[in-house]
């Protein structure tokens, strides 16, 4: 097991360096002088000189790469053009909101997706057909469009939910009401993000439960006279759950990208909204920073899922 984890760890470290090198190369391959990409459209020769020196742009390419890697590892990703703040602190301040959104969505996805998938596999017939068709439609509808529609229907026309943000701007709530207010604002974005992934998890759960249901120990359980509900939820689901859990874990990358688009629609103050704003302002260092931080988050989650998978399923350890 340790060998496997060390192998994965090496892969992830190599991946992280690859990502740093990709971003570095992109900055240098882009048309125009990289100085202007890193410094913004300023004409102050003193400032340009300072930036050139700071990023070592007057040195040969491989030295520049080493300097860049060193800076990234130190967490120094430069400064935002438009906000007088370092890229790292700007992104770190937005991570909690994004995590809140992703974790809430993941919670909904795990509950609803696993439930629907199990029901579809256990009942078959028309229930299965309906769930199958719905999940196929669910994976085909772009979630940003779905979010837009939800915003138009539930916020703008029915006035049931706020149009955006994380907290109410007009009133300040205290204590428990503060958290309830956040939850109220969280509802639409989390649901939007969840629906798309529920469809995926339903499909995966259904496939796995169906496969487990053909195995011998299910026949044994049934012939012992156990009630069907117990067979499905105790025996089949339990054994089908490991691949589902892994799927949900590895799907965090998809959720992160989904969160970026969802945050844009509902003005949820996380990394996604920051990315959208920097895209509009052409705030290049922040964009690159979000890419590097996003990749780092996904790598860490993948590593955690790898380790959990190993602990959960003893069969993998032997391989």
């Amino acid at each position, binding site marked *: 097991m340790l060998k496997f984890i060390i192998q994965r760890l090496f*892969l*992830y470290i*190599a*991946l992280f360096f*690859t*990502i740093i090198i*990709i*971003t570095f190369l*992109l*900055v240098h*391959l*882009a*048309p125009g002088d990289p100085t202007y*990409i890193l410094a913004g459209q300023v004409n102050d020769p003193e400032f340009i000189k300072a930036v050139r020196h700071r990023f070592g742009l007057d040195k040969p390419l491989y030295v520049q790469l080493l300097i860049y890697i060193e800076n990234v590892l130190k967490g120094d990703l430069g400064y935002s053009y438009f906000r007088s703040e370092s890229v790292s602190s700007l992104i770190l301040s937005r991570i909690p909101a994004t995590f809140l959104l992703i974790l809430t969505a993941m919670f909904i996805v795990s509950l609803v997706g696993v439930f629907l998938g199990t029901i579809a596999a256990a009942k078959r017939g028309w229930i*299965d057909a309906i769930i*199958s068709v719905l999940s*196929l*439609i669910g*994976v*085909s*509808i*772009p979630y*940003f*469009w779905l979010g*837009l*529609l939800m*915003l*138009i229907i539930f916020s*703008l*026309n029915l006035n049931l939910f706020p149009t955006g943000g994380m907290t109410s701007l007009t009133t300040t709530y205290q204590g428990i009401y503060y958290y309830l207010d956040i939850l109220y604002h969280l509802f639409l974005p989390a649901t939007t993000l969840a629906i798309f992934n529920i469809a995926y998890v339903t*499909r995966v759960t*259904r*496939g796995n439960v*169906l*496969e487990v249901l053909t195995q011998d120990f299910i026949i044994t359980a049934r012939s012992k006279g156990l009630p069907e509900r117990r067979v499905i939820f105790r025996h089949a689901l339990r054994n089908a759950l490991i691949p589902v859990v892994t799927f949900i874990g590895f799907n965090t*990358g*998809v959720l*992160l*990208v989904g969160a*970026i*688009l969802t945050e*844009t*629609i509902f003005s949820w103050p996380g990394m996604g909204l920051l*990315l*959208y704003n920097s*895209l*509009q302002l*052409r705030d*290049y260092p922040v*964009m*690159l920073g*979000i*890419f590097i931080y*996003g*990749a780092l988050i*996904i*790598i860490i989650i*993948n590593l955690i899922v790898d380790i959990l998978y190993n602990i959960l399923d003893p069969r993998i350890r032997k391989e």
Partner: protein
Amino acid sequence: MYKLILNHTKYLKEKFSNFNTRLIVGITLTCIIVILGILAPFITWYPPLTVMQGPPYQPPSLQYLFGTDDLGRDIYVNTIYGIRTSLIVGVLSALIAMLIGILLGIIAGYYRGFLEDLLMRITDMAFIIPQFLLALIIVTTLGPNIYNIILAIGVTSWPGIARMTRATTLSVKQQTFIEAAKVLGLSDIKIISSELLPNSLPSVIPYITLQIGNNILVEAGLGFLGVSDPNVSSLGMLLNNAQQHILANAWWMSVFPGIFLSLMILGFNLLGDGLIEYMNPRLRRKAF
């Protein structure tokens, strides 16, 4: 006569018994969408993106089928041309992905050993990097025009195809005709190009179809964030515009482009799923 028709239906049923509902619906949907995209100049009345074809924010009517947007652009015209853009980007980027993925997959599957390990680790790594973020960074760095968008989506969407090609190559390689080709003394390149490739390709095609659907979604997502070619009408761009003017409460601005985008992705997903099932009838009733 009745008997004849009955016999004929029976014959058709047997002949197409491998066809499944998903495949048929998928083919139909994709064909309709592709025809709309090809016929775009003939079923619209203005070039795309012309402003002030009508008053702004007109609800759908006979004159403006899908209504007009904030600049008085006809949403119907732009949606139809947007479908065309989506198809072009989706198909061409999937072709780029196919070239890279099949090349890497076949090399890994054929040569095994160190080369396979290396290529598959690279594929593993490429799988983890979120495609959307990488494509976004590439397009914004190189400049948002349609060629860069196709290129960026293409070079970020090959890992799935590479894995699939390697898996099929491994199984094709076990067949006796590959051994025969080797005994005959054919060169590696000859074996790969005239034996392995034609026999591996059919099982990879459904996954390429799924990739087209995925790439259309990525392109629309980029457009939704405002990263799109300003000179080309695209569905993502229309949705981005709808979002920016959401307070005008012009529901038609987002509803119509979104419906066509969803139908297009649904079509390619159904087609891909249906083809997988068509090629492996064993999977029938198992996957959906």
